[in-house]
């Protein structure tokens, strides 16, 4: 019994597994680990295949570190690894598988025990598997490792002829030879380091194939290998090979990414199959199943080194090769201070993005980002690998504001053009409004949206008032102008009608008073008002100076003399004895006043 530590599986496998799993979602289901040994019955020296497969689970920073003990088995060569990703009903399922070739020793029981697999922090102890080594195993169970010499036929090319391993035992003579071919091809045969190369194994056949199993897979040393699962519904397609008609179907496909430049030989693939063989002779109408072992042709790949990147892109080039694009989105683009927006950066396209480091995010002042999360992986359609990797950062605004996020980009080598390019995401804007009052006291108000044309218009009176002001300014001047012009036109008569009428009315009132003193005072007061209104004689002017005041207004001297005589008579009346008869004098003064006033007004 010998202990086999799978640390010896090589640093490459560990690195591949760690990087592969690092891109898987952290929220996946718990992983499951299965082990299988095939076949269960085999002969001495035959080869069995031990497969350990991890499906699903938390794969971030996983360590897939299997170990087991072999009893009556001997490991042959290094293990083969493959990975697979499937999307079923929106759920990503990923698996990683290692396969070891074990050569049976002596007759009896051969076992693989103490199988332990470390996946991340989980350790799985798997049950032992065993096989029976017998002297005469069934032919279908015979799997011998390739050995030097012609132990197994190799397919040298399209003209390769199949070999019937049972032909020596059963000489069937007249039976028809089943025409089955295996052809391996790579596309493109000359590629850049890191460029995706598709390895395809084609099965060409002219007869029915009832059973087929892989016996030997190439190691693909020097390549990152992604399995392209074979679809069960792939149709066979008619084709021609060496002038003969065949149907062909892809048996397997692998996406290869060269880890470095050089020339690489990919070993043949060996398969076991059972073909239907038509019998000749008496039982010609019958057919039998004929086991066959086939090998494909080896293929050679030439991997060219990448040219030196231009100086302006060299600093940002991280080894990406392929036809890639970069998208970014920000959800939401408007938020309140204290909330977080999710910035997603997605790199996708044809190429291998598994090993790309997290892009650097340089944020403007006022914005901060939480640690980035990663998700995504490779999607594998029919013929090649489409990569998609997403980084997400929660962005937290520290204050209200608007930010234009810096343009994010990655530099990659485009194998189609042979040039370095930069994939850039579209520019993004983030707006932060004031948060809740108790949490964002320093913030300003939120940005209100545009106003809809259907909304009622602004009813502010200010514009109407402003438009009315010139009219309001014009109106008083128009009134003044009107009044002034009317007065100018109809000046004399209309201008004096009012004071004279009032004067005469006051004279009438004064005469009605039987007391001469009061009559004289009233007449004198009527004159004061008349002279003030008509001739602008100040009301406080003493009667003795009325004549002089009227002289300033160019009043005729005779009228001024008559006014002086009237004033003297009024003075006499004011001082007349109470017993004297003054009725005639009062009436006469009133009449003289009326006549004089009319003459002055004229």
């Amino acid at each position, binding site marked *: 019994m010998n202990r086999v530590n799978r640390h010896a599986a090589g640093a490459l496998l560990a690195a591949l597994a760690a990087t592969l799993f690092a891109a898987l979602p952290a929220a996946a289901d718990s992983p499951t680990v299965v082990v299988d040994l095939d076949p269960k019955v085999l002969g001495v020296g035959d080869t069995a295949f031990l497969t350990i497969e991890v499906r699903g689970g938390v794969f971030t920073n996983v360590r897939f570190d299997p170990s087991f003990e072999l009893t009556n088995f001997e490991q042959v060569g290094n293990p083969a690894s493959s990975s697979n990703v499937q999307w079923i009903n929106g759920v990503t399922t990923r698996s990683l598988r290692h396969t070891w070739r074990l050569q049976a020793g002596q007759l009896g029981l051969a076992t693989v025990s103490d199988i332990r697999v470390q996946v991340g922090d989980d350790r799985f102890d798997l049950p032992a598997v065993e096989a029976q080594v017998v002297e005469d195993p069934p032919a279908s169970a015979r799997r011998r490792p390739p050995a030097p010499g012609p132990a197994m036929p190799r397919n040298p090319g399209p003209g390769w002829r199949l070999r019937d391993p049972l032909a020596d035992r059963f000489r069937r003579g007249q039976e028809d030879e089943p025409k089955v071919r295996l052809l391996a091809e790579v596309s493109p045969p000359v590629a850049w380091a890191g460029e995706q190369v598709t390895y395809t194994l084609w099965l060409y056949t002219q007869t029915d194939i009832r059973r087929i199993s892989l016996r030997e897979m190439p190691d693909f040393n020097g390549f990152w290998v992604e399995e392209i699962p074979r679809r069960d519904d792939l149709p066979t397609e008619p084709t021609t090979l060496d002038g003969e008609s065949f149907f062909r179907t892809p048996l397997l496909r692998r996406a290869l990414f060269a880890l470095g430049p050089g020339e690489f030989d990919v070993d043949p693939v060996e398969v076991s199959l059972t073909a239907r063989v038509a019998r000749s002779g008496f039982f010609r109408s019958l057919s039998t199943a004929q086991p066959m072992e086939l090998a494909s042709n080896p293929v050679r790949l030439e991997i060219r080194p990448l040219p030196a990147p231009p100086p302006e892109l060299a600093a940002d080039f991280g080894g990406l090769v392929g036809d890639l694009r970069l998208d970014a989105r920000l959800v939401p683009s408007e938020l309140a201070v204290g909330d977080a927006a999710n910035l997603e950066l997605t790199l996708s396209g044809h190429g291998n993005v598994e090993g790309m480091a997290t892009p650097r995010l340089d944020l403007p002042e006022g914005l901060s980002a939480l640690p980035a999360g990663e998700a995504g992986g490779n999607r594998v359609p029919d013929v090649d690998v489409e990569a998609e990797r997403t980084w997400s950062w929660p962005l937290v605004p520290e204050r209200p504001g608007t930010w234009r996020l810096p343009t994010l980009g990655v530099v990659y080598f485009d194998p189609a053009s042979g040039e370095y390019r930069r994939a850039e995401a579209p520019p993004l804007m983030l707006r932060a409004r004031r948060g809740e009052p108790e949490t964002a006291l320093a913030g300003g108000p939120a940005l*209100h949206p545009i106003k809809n044309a259907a909304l009622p218009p*602004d009813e502010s009176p200010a514009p109407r*008032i402003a438009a009315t*002001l*010139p009219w309001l300014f014009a109106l008083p001047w128009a009134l003044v102008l009107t009044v002034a012009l009317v007065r100018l036109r109809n*000046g004399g008569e209309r201008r004096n009608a009012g004071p004279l009428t009032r004067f005469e009315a006051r004279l009438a009132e004064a005469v009605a008073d039987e007391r001469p003193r009061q009559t004289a005072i009233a007449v004198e007061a009527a004159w004061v008002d008349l002279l003030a209104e008509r001739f602008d004689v100040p009301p406080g002017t003493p009667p003795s100076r009325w004549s002089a005041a009227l002289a300033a207004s160019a009043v005729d001297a005779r009228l001024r003399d008559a006014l002086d005589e009237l004033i003297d008579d009024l003075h006499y009346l004011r001082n007349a004895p109470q017993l004297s008869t003054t009725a005639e004098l009062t009436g006469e003064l009133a009449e003289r006043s009326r006549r004089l006033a009319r003459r002055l007004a004229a």
Partner: protein
Amino acid sequence: MSRLGRLLPPALAAAGLALALVALFAGRPGRGDDATATLARDSLARGNRLVRRGELDAALAAYTAGWGDGDGGASSATLAYNLGTTHHRLGQLPEALLWYRRALAVAPSPNDDWLRENLELARAELAAARFEPPGLGGRLAAHPVLLTTAAVVLAWLALTLYLARRRLALSLPPAVGEWAWAAVAGIAFATWAAVFALSAWGPRPAVLLAPCGPELAAGSEVWVTPAGEEGWSVAGGAEGRSCPESVVGRVGG
């Protein structure tokens, strides 16, 4: 009554009437007609459709086409507000601030919370300087409607004094009663003329759309006066500095 006393009232009234008519036909303050209002409304609707489709740059062009001289009445105020909001969403904060100010100048409604809050948000985000109007002229220019209203009030006071001048002459010294209305009329003329003078040569509010010297950052709210071919001279904040026309966004016309 002297000849001057008879001819002065119609002469002053004619002068006042002429000043008012000049204001009316010179388009100050704002004028508007149905055509410009219709254009403003159509541009507003078209710009709003583009905003809803996320075509902000095209929306800006549509809004601007309807703005004209801002004579579209209430629609112009909404246009200016939407222009400010769209610039704001594009991160063009100085332009947003300018259009918010223009919206406020067109319709200074005290109830427009959206406009005032967006304006304050733009100011907070810009954190640029904001200068007060310079001197008495700037303070008067900051309130043109108030100054115009004062002239109107003085005109009506002059009318009242004119009509009551003879009665005033009985209770006041004759010269005071007779000529007080003329003095008030003169003050009204001077006030009205000051509105024109300030609008032509006085300081006016502006928003700098780009930095103008080290002390005047983009988004600064300053006061500028015409400086001939040199553009505009800053009168409020960094006095004397000349800024090119392309940098100065005037709030008024």
